[in-house]
């Protein structure tokens, strides 16, 4: 074989890209770190799991259906979402997790030489997907932990195609209220697609928190992302969706990979979406968990950033990578924030009281 042949075939933007390395399975980590139990506080999963009805659907799933292709465009789920949000089923696209719909949107609107805009310290997948697609990612620094609307607008030029707004922001929990979001959309004035990623929408109870789903008929360049991974506890089945007006969804549909959402995920999501009781129970758990954690963190003198969503960030007096390893020896798995450009911070998922106590005990040991 000729020397460096694969290197020559690879685009420059791939050569310089670092592949994401996911965590090992819990059983492996427990062995490696010599701990009996792992408290998963790293991925903002729902400790309560899926809603009861979804659990029942999963339990009763006929294994023979595994041999059949799923609905290629998640037909029944799109009808259900349309009914819930008073829209047309064709205003929804369902993907294999919200990560997949990020890719659909990017492919639909961006070509070489274009750029996207997002924040420097936010959910990394917008930036990654752009970079490994050869699209420039322009990053506006946060201001006081919040996305900077003016900073984003200043980064726009004629080649800006998409602006990604994570609302509430992961990992800071800050959010743009209805007025700020609407003003921003008006200032963009249709020059770029605006994606509002509402992965944590169902956790927010604030009255001024915007419902971007209600704005999509008003603004044709607006797209809303939501997921079943967080509130609805279906992260392991990978299912999320986007919504927009007909025209924008028609464009994005052209880059959609059909049949990427499996039958079990569609069935479980279909039933989960109606369970308001599950939403209320989860909100209670998060509220109580945050109250406990913030009290305890104040007692041990660790600064924190706590906003909306089922997570908060803690500032440590040591390297967050070292803290991760030390906490793992107690079975507490957190998310280091170096990768989010918050050195020495960790993000922790609000989970069971037992897990929160284990976290505090672990932190007391290491600081």
């Amino acid at each position, binding site marked *: 074989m000729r020397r460096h042949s694969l290197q020559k075939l690879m685009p420059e933007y791939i050569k310089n890209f670092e592949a994401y*390395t996911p965590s090992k399975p819990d059983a492996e980590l427990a062995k*490696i*770190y010599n701990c009996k139990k792992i408290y998963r506080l790293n991925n903002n999963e729902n400790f309560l799991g899926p809603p009861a009805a979804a659990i029942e659907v999963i339990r009763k799933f006929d294994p023979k259906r595994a041999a059949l292709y799923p609905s290629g465009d998640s037909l029944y789920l799109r009808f259900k979402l349309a009914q819930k949000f008073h829209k047309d089923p064709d205003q929804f696209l369902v993907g294999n997790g919200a990560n997949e719909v990020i890719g659909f949107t990017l492919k639909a609107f961006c070509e070489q030489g274009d750029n996207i805009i997002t924040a420097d310290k936010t959910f990394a997948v917008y930036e990654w997907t752009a970079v490994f697609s050869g699209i420039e990612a322009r990053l506006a620094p946060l201001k006081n932990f919040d996305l900077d609307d003016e900073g984003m607008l200043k980064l726009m030029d004629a080649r800006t195609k998409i602006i990604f707004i994570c609302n509430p922001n992961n990992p800071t929990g800050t959010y743009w209220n209805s007025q700020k979001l609407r003003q921003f959309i008006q200032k963009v004035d249709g020059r770029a697609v605006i994606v509002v990623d509402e992965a944590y929408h169902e956790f927010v109870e604030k009255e001024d928190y915007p419902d971007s789903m209600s704005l999509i008929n008003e603004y044709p360049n607006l797209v809303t992302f939501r997921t079943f991974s967080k509130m609805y506890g279906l992260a392991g089945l990978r299912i999320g969706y986007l919504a927009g007006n007909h025209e924008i969804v028609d464009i994005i549909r052209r880059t959609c990979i059909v049949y990427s959402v499996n039958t079990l995920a569609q069935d479980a999501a279909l039933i989960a979406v109606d369970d308001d009781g599950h939403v209320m129970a989860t909100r209670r758990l998060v509220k109580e968990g945050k109250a406990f954690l913030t009290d305890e963190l104040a007692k041990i003198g660790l600064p924190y950033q706590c906003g909306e969503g089922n997570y908060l960030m803690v500032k440590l007096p040591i390297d967050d990578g070292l803290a991760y390893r030390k906490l793992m*020896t107690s079975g507490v798995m957190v998310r280091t924030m170096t990768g989010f450009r918050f050195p020495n911070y960790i993000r922790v998922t609000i989970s069971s009281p037992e897990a929160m106590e284990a976290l505090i005990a672990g932190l007391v040991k290491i600081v």
Partner: protein
Amino acid sequence: MHADRVIQAILKLDYDKSQVSILTSFVENAASCYGLEPADALDLTLASEEIFVYLCSQANQTEQLEIRCRHGGYFVQLQFDFHAGNFDLSAFNLTALQAIDITSDQPETGLLIASRLVDKFSFFKHDGFSQLILRKEKSYPVDHIGPLPPAKAMRDFLVREPEPEELKLLVHYLHYRYESCVIPMSFQSPGKVADMVRYGACKAVIAADKLGSIGGGIFWAWQNAKLVEFWGPYSFGEPENSAVSSRLVEYMISSIARTTVVGLITIAPSPQLPLEYFEPLGTLNMIAPEGTVCKTTCYYRHMHEDSGSSVWASQLVKDFLTREYEKHVFARKIRIVANEGENISQTSVIATDIDKGQAKATLKPIWWGKDDLKLIQAYVKTLLKEGLFNILFEMDLGHSWECYFTPALMESHFEPCLVLPYGGTGDMLMFQYSGGNII
């Protein structure tokens, strides 16, 4: 010329000594064109001649040799690329004597002679291909600026990339305000640093206020795809652990946070290094060319969440590794290697990376054989004779065979000094020659 574009000339030659004048003309012209002074261009030309003649004497096939001459901004680099299979690799031991032309009066190999003529000399082997790299740096005036006005504490400042003139001023400040052991040897000239940054050899940011006053700075450079080395943070007119230092460090960390980098290291920490961002990894005794000894603690930051791994190791370093892994909470399974009577090669091969500016030679194993002790001791003698007092040995604990060198290293007064997580295929165990007598 554009700093973001590789400027290079390429020559292909048969392994035939009669073509040496083609090579020397090529190198001399390219080196001059790329900015070397005539004397420096001549050194590089002579070095290339030595290498070419040596390769011709070693080659056992007729395949062509490729020589690249690259403009690196502050240096000119020659790269010889060839199939490793065409050579007996033991000929690439810097200490090899068996390949000497017996008609020559020269008692040393062309490799050693060439290494004396350049600033950096490296030999690598990977995937069946080998590379010899010779680097000659441009000559720059050394910083002779007089005393500078005292710096003031900064209140409102921004961390940003500097203009070239700001960068040079920063380097002036460094030489005026810091001990030499916390400044890289390659920073002797502000003009050189400006070129290094311009051509991407390192990155720099400064802390500056609205009036343009410089309150500090930090530098970093990719040593390979996984490791970044940094110098600083330098902070003027600020108490230790000031906001300036922390902001500089945070900027650097954030800028490499979503890259391939696994580790961030400094072997010359400044007094203002904010320790909360790093962990002490180990100690190195670095001897400057003028003879002063700097005992420095290396500080490290692991950029990823570690999910554990296994390493190979000799029983001789098991305790050291266990202690280090426990101290830094790296979950590692140590697998002991030992020769159990299986056939082994007669000869060892060790590659060398020489950095004259730091009086440093880094040895990297290519092949292990029965003569490992003899070879290592020959290396030490040769390198010390060349004034390279800082001798390191990199052992990749992801390759079990590299661990076979451990007994010979220990017997030759090398000591394990630190472990770089994922510094190679696996973790990299660094040994440093401790200065004992080699008989």
